[in-house]
């Protein structure tokens, strides 16, 4: 276990620069850059700005759907943005890593998406602007079988689906 953990940390350090690159050259379906410094949208109302500057995703602990303090910070930004650009609606996609069974992970992804929805609603975003969906373990963005990848796959991604600037 110790060895495994150390291995995972080393793998992560080695992979730091590569982590953001998709080995198959496929953009995450939501355009999902997490601020790699390229093409940061300067227009604050744009979807690209939401994705890259506000941050479109939050990450979760194994088997958990409770929000981390980092996640809450991101969601505060999302809530502010949504309250400012009220013409946008969003779909929150909940995901799990590959360490669970398929159907449990569907339910877990739904729980994560719902946790994000509930938080945004608690910050004043209208409930009917938010839809949730789960992908369970069906759509990983990182494909290694190490914690460095799993931690990025345990995510809820807020996808802007409607609005003048989309």
């Amino acid at each position, binding site marked *: 276990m110790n060895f495994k953990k150390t291995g995972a940390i080393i793998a992560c350090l080695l992979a730091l620069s590569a982590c953001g690159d998709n080995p198959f050259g496929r953009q995450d379906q939501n355009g999902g850059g997490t601020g790699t410094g390229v093409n940061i949208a300067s227009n604050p109302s744009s979807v690209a700005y939401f994705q890259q500057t506000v941050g479109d995703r939050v990450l979760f602990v194994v088997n958990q759907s409770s929000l981390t303090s980092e996640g809450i910070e991101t969601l505060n930004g999302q809530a502010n943005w949504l309250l400012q650009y009220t013409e946008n609606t969003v779909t929150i996609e909940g995901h799990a890593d590959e360490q669970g*069974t398929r159907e449990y992970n569907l339910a877990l992804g739904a729980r994560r998406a719902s946790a994000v929805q509930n938080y945004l609603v608690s910050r004043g975003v209208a409930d009917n602007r938010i839809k949730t969906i789960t992908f369970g373990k069906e759509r990983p963005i990182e494909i290694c079988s190490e914690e460095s990848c799993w931690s990025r796959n345990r995510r809820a991604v807020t996808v802007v689906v409607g609005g003048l600037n989309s």
Partner: protein
Amino acid sequence: MTRITKILCMAWMMALGLVLAANAQNKPLRIEITEGIIEPLPFAAPLFVAENAAAQEYAAKLTQVVTADLVGSGLFREIPAAAHISKVSNFNAPVQFSEWKAINAQALITGAVSVTSDNRMVVKFRLFDVVAQAPLGKGLQFVASTDSWRRMSHKVADAVYVRLTGEPSGYFDSRVVYIAEEGPKNARKKRLALMDYDGANVRYLTNSNDIVLAPRFSPNAREIIYTSYETGEPRVFLMNVDTLSRRVLDSEPGMTFAPRFSPDGRYVVMSLTNRGNTDIYRFDVARGSKTRLTNSPAIETAPSYSPDGNQIVFESDRGGGQQLYVMSANGGSAKRISFGSGSYGTPVWSPRGDMIAFTKITKGRFHIGVMRVDGSQEKLLAGSFLDEGPTWSPNGRVIMFFRETPGANGAPSLFSVDVTGRNLRKINTPTFASDPAWSRLLE
């Protein structure tokens, strides 16, 4: 699908004047598979006799599939044709038992096939106890169209299996529905696929536009329920296998998944997620109405009926971790049955009713296991980085599941293992494959 007619040929056997040896009644040739086998039972299956020219092409294929079924069960060992002293060129000629005994065959399977001008095929076979020098059971013959030749082979093998094991039924004449997978791990394409239990006759039932997951057969194997993202979110669909027509089972809002039929085919139990909370519902297929069976903030999913339809085993994290519970088929209070370390999911009730197969995750590894329905006598049958999703053979003797390899190029394949934990085998499929579900014996 042509319906295969089965004709017991008792009179035909009697006409041949075959006489049971006296000791065959007292000690029938029998392989005990509940006790654990050390040595598979050796048998010989000489090339089936082609009784007319049109049958030539089928004789070898039939013999080969019957042999492959029996050997694949892990209970029988083939004595190859090269070692045979006797050749069987006439199905009705007397068996030279001494020549089969000399090569240590304990069971002998003889067969014959003829094909009529309208492409109908008659397959006959007999099974003999070589040591007792006597037939084991009556001769059987099956009649069907020639394109059903594989099913005829499986029926012969099932009959041999039943006679030599004493099990109530075999499992070879059956199908498996599964998910065919292709492409990179982060953009996997999935299709619903159907195959014979041994991987033959693969047929794809959907295209790869939408994610499809975890199919199950209806009791008569004419319909399949599965989860699809066709509408944009996970939804349970019902598909007719012959026409491929399909419809959303429950059109009310919410994500639905993990569907399974009740043993009488009247209901589908499945998970429905509402505002992040997943519970189990029973859906009346004909009426379109649904009943909520669990009601807790926990994740409740992967329901599976007992074969008598009275109970449902499912997984829930209501106690913290993912564990197995049994409740009445009408819902209500549930009793936890899994207590080992780690988490338990995907419970499947055995068709015999006596055991539950499951996926167990412990110490970062996935296992396929079985336990009694009260949770006792847990036994792990297979384990790897990711072994998941057990499904029972029609007779409850074999479990199929999928095994996924780790890493960036990780991909799933189908495996089967005997309920004793022996005879782990990979089932070859044209693509990656996951989520197998075994049918009952075909009708």
